[in-house]
């Protein structure tokens, strides 16, 4: 496992930050971002996918009233792919029975999707070796967040209650002061404590947080980040090995 990983550094992998505005479609934006990233990494093709198609064609109806990442992946599977953002643009609202999936050419598709184990080491390994992953977190602390690494506890951010889906795009470690200024004599050299963090892509526009991104502490299940780690798969399914059979 590398000590740092940042898929934003791969040209064409991570699409620009979106803004969901008054439409509760974080789940669709996270899923689209996941497929865009995997498509960019595997095929070296930068694609921007239609979030609106995910909203209009969601099996549960009005996608702007909320949803789940797995529903977005099911829509992509049912429609045999997803149109481009350019062809089927985001309107920030949905109308009943307005699925226009058949009207536009598909520019990306998936084989299936999986949920990873609720283990940050496994999530980091998958992220580093395959690409970005969608996660669903408790967004409580994001209401007041400006920048830096959020070190949440179960009291400040209940990991059992998750209500916002985002895209995990990397991880790293930051050097931060271990103690507060006033508690240490000016002469002493305070040891720097390394804070491991996740890098997450949000859908509240580029002016929010760290240019649309935020960082969460890694290794403490901060805000329930391990609860629903989902990712699409754009690879061909691995061919089954020939079964070994015992000779008669």
């Amino acid at each position, binding site marked *: 496992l590398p000590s740092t990983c940042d898929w934003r550094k791969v040209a064409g992998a991570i699409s620009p930050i979106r803004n969901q505005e008054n439409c509760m479609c974080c789940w669709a934006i996270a899923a689209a971002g996941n497929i865009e990233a995997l498509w960019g990494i595997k095929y070296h093709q930068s694609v921007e996918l239609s979030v609106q198609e995910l909203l209009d064609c969601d099996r549960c109806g009005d996608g702007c009233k909320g949803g789940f990442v797995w529903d977005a992946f099911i829509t992509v599977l049912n429609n045999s792919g997803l149109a481009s953002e350019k062809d089927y643009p985001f309107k920030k609202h949905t109308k009943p029975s307005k699925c226009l999936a058949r009207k536009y050419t598909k520019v990306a598709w998936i084989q299936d999707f999986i949920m990873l184990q609720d283990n940050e080491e496994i999530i980091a390994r998958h992220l580093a070796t395959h690409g970005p992953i969608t996660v669903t977190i408790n967004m409580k602390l994001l209401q007041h*967040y400006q920048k830096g690494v959020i070190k949440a506890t179960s009291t*400040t951010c209940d990991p059992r209650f998750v209500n916002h889906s985002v895209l995990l795009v990397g991880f790293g470690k930051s050097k931060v002061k271990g103690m507060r200024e006033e508690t240490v004599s000016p002469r002493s050299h305070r040891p720097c404590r390394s*804070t491991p963090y996740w890098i997450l892509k949000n859908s509240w526009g580029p002016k929010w947080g760290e240019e649309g991104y935020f960082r969460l502490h890694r290794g403490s299940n901060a805000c329930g980040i391990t609860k629903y780690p989902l990712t699409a798969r754009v690879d061909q399914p691995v061919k089954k090995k020939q079964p070994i059979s015992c000779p008669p």
Partner: protein
Amino acid sequence: DSLRAQDHGPQPLELNEVFKLFQVQFNRSYSNSAEHARRLDIFAHNLAQAQWLQEDMCTAEFGVTPFSDLTEEEFGQLYGHQRATRREINMVRKVESEEWGEP
């Protein structure tokens, strides 16, 4: 409002100034004075909450954001992914059963 502001954050005059700046920065206007007063109260509460988080967590910065005039409940309702929680519970059950080795 004044008591609340004195208890937790900036003095009332400062708070009003900060709130005005917030309104300009994020293009906020309210339908009437009662609503304005309510939002100011929420804003003061949120500012105090941000200050508390800032003190508690030295690795991140918290403060005024586009959501500073919303209650925690409103923020969750407007920007979360909430739908029927029943389906979420089913999903949890499935994961838990897999952990115990059942397909």
